[in-house]
C-alpha cells in the first residue's frame, strides 16, 4: 500500500503533461462565439440617441464583443504556446456521469419546486445528490434530507419570511 502511495506521489511530481492542453481551445471558441452573439444582439438595438444620452445602449456591448474576440484569439495563441491556467488540473478522470446526474436532479428540483413545494423538492434534491455523490446509507440520507427540508422551511420561510413555496403541502405545514 505504501509502495503504491509513493508511486502515486512520484507520478504527480514528474508527469508535467507535455504539449498544450488542447481542450482549452474550447474556451477560446466559446469566448469568440460569445463575442459574436453580443455584437449581433447590439446591432439589433435601435441606434437612437437622445440629448441626455449621446451614445445610447449600443457602444458598450459592441466594445465588449470586440474585446471578447480579441481575447479569444490571444487565448488560442497562448494555448498553442503551451500556456495553462492557475490550479487547473487537467490530468485524471473527469466524472461526466456524476455531473450529468447532478444536473438532472438540480433541474428536476427547478421544475417541481412550485408544484411540490420546497419541503418535498428540496428533500429530494438533497437525497438525490447525496446518493449520486456516493452515500450508500439511503435511509439515513433520506432522514437527513427530510429534516433539512422541514427545518429550512420552518426556519426561513415561516421564521424569517424568506419566500419558499409550500406547494401541495399548503395548509398542512
Amino acid at each position, binding site marked *: 500500500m505504501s509502495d503504491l502511495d509513493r508511486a502515486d506521489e512520484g507520478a504527480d511530481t514528474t508527469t508535467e503533461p507535455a504539449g498544450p492542453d488542447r481542450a482549452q481551445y474550447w*474556451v477560446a471558441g466559446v*469566448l469568440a462565439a460569445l463575442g459574436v*452573439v*453580443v455584437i449581433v444582439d*447590439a446591432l439589433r*438595438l*435601435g441606434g437612437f440617441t437622445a440629448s441626455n*444620452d*449621446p*451614445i445610447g*445602449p449600443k457602444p*458598450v*456591448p459592441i466594445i*465588449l464583443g470586440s*474585446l*471578447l474576440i480579441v*481575447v479569444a484569439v490571444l487565448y488560442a495563441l*497562448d494555448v498553442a504556446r503551451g*500556456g*495553462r*491556467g*492557475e*490550479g*487547473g*488540473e*487537467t490530468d*485524471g478522470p*473527469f*466524472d461526466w456521469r*456524476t*455531473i450529468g446526474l*447532478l*444536473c438532472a436532479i*438540480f*433541474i428536476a*428540483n*427547478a*421544475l417541481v419546486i*412550485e408544484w411540490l413545494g420546497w419541503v418535498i423538492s*428540496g428533500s429530494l*434534491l*438533497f*437525497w438525490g*445528490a*447525496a446518493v*449520486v*455523490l*456516493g*452515500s450508500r446509507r439511503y435511509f439515513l*440520507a433520506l432522514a*437527513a434530507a427530510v429534516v*433539512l427540508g422541514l427545518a*429550512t422551511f420552518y426556519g*426561513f420561510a415561516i421564521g*424569517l*419570511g*424568506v*419566500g*419558499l*413555496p409550500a406547494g401541495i403541502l399548503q395548509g398542512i405545514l
Partner: protein
Amino acid sequence: MDNLDSLIEGFGAVLTPQNLLIALIGVTIGTAVSMMPGMGTAMAIALLLPITYGMEPTQAFIMFAGIFYGGMYGGSTTAILLNTPGQSSSVVTVMEGFKMARNGRGGQALATAAIGSFVAGTIATVALVFVTPVTVSFAIGLGAPDYLAIMVLALFATASVLGSSRIRGFASLLFGLVVGTIGIDAVTGQQRLTYGVPQLADGIDVVIVAVGVFAIGEALWIAARGRRTKDEIIPVGRVWMGRKDWRRSWGPWLRGTALGFPFGAMPAGGAEVPTFLSYVTERRLSKHKNEFGKGAIEGVAGPEAANNASAAGTLVPMLALGLPCNATAAVMLAAFQTYGIQPGPLLFENESALVWTLIASLFIGNTMLLVLNMPMIPIWVKLLRVPKPYLFAGILFFASMGAYAVNAQPFDLFVLIVLGLAGLAMRRFGLPMLPLIVGVILGPMAERQARMSLQLSGGELSGLIGGPVSWVVYGILALIAVWPLVRFVARRRARDREIVAA
C-alpha cells in the same frame, strides 16, 4: 471627533440583547459554513445572504459583520488542519500551519491565527474608522469621469494583477461584464441580450452569479474529480499558547497588520501580496530561521494577521467608493444593493447610522469570535468529518434555496445551474473567479459613469477624461499595462549581459 460620536452611537445600536444574539448567530454560522472544506469566505457569505432577506437592514448588516469575521476565521482553521487553502489568501498560512499541526502543535497554530486575526481585525477596523471618512471627503469632489477612471482601474487590475495569467483574467472579466449587461438598459429602456425572456429583463442578480460560480461550481468540481482524494484530518489538542509562543507571535501580528491594511484599502490590492510579503519578512527577521518550512509559528501569525487586516481594509473602498475589490466585498456590495442602498461617498450622509452600526458590529463580531469560538475549536473540528456526499448535497440544497429566495422564481434555478457549469469549466481551465464577479458588479456602474460623463460633455469623447485624478489613475493603469513588458526587456538585457560576460 464626529466619527467617534457616530461610532459610539453605532455601538449603542448594536448593544441590545436581540442584536447581540444576531451577531452571535452570524459569527457562529459564518465559522461553521466556512469551516467546511472547499468553502471560502465569499462562498459562505453568498450562501448565507438569503437568511437575511426577511430582516431589517440594520440587523442584516450586524449579521453580515459576524459572518464576515466568522468566515475568515473558519477558513484559516480548515487551511491549517486539512492542508487545503479555501482561498488564495490562505495559501501562505498553510505552508507553516499544516506543518505545525503535523508536529503536534496544531493548537498553537490555531491559537496564534485566532488571536492574530483578532488583533489585526481590531487595529484594522480602528484604521477603517479614520481612513474611510478621509476617503469619502476625497471622493465627494470626484466627478463622473474620475469615477469611471477608478472603476476601469479596478476592473483592469483585478483581471491582470491578481492571478498568474493575464489572458485568463481578462477572459473571466469580459464574461462577467457581458453578464452584467444582460437586462433592460437603465437609460433608454432597451433590452440587451434578454432574447425576450421576461425574467432576464431585470438582469441576473449578483447573488445568483456568486452562488452559481462559487458554490455550485465548487460542488460540481469536487463531484467530477474529488472522490478519489481523501483528506487527512489531524486531531488538535487544547488551543492555547505558551509564553514563548506569545513572544514569537506579537511582532508578526503587528507587522502583518501594517502590511495587510494598506494593500486591502487599495483598489485591487488584494490579500495575496501582503500575506506573502509578511511571510517573507518574518522569515528574514526570525531568530528561528531553521524552523521555517518545518512549522514556524511566525509564519502563521504574520500572514494570518495580514489576511485579516487586508479584509478589513477592503471595506474602505467598498464603503467610501462603492468599489468591491475582493470576492467577499463583492458579495457584501450585492447585499447592500438588495436593500436598495448604494455604497459610495453619499452613503455616509444618507445612511450614516447604518454604516456606523456595521462598523461597530465588526468590532463586536471580532471580539465574540475570540471569546466564544476559541474554546470551541475542538467542537468545530468535528464539522470537518461530515462525509463528502452530505456536505456537497448540502451545498446544492442551500444554494438552490438561496437562489430561489432572491426573486421567488424557478427560472433563477436554471440560471444558477448554467452559471454553476460555467464555474466548473472555469475551475477546470484555471480561470480566476474574482474578475468575473467584480465585472458583473462594476461593469454596469462603469457604463453609467461613462454615459454620464458624455452627457455632461455633450457627446464629446474628451469628456471621458476629467480632472487630475483621472489623469493619475490612467497613469497607474498604463504602468500596470506596461510593467510585464519592462520586466521582460530587463530580463532579456540581464541575460544578454551574462552571455557577453561569459
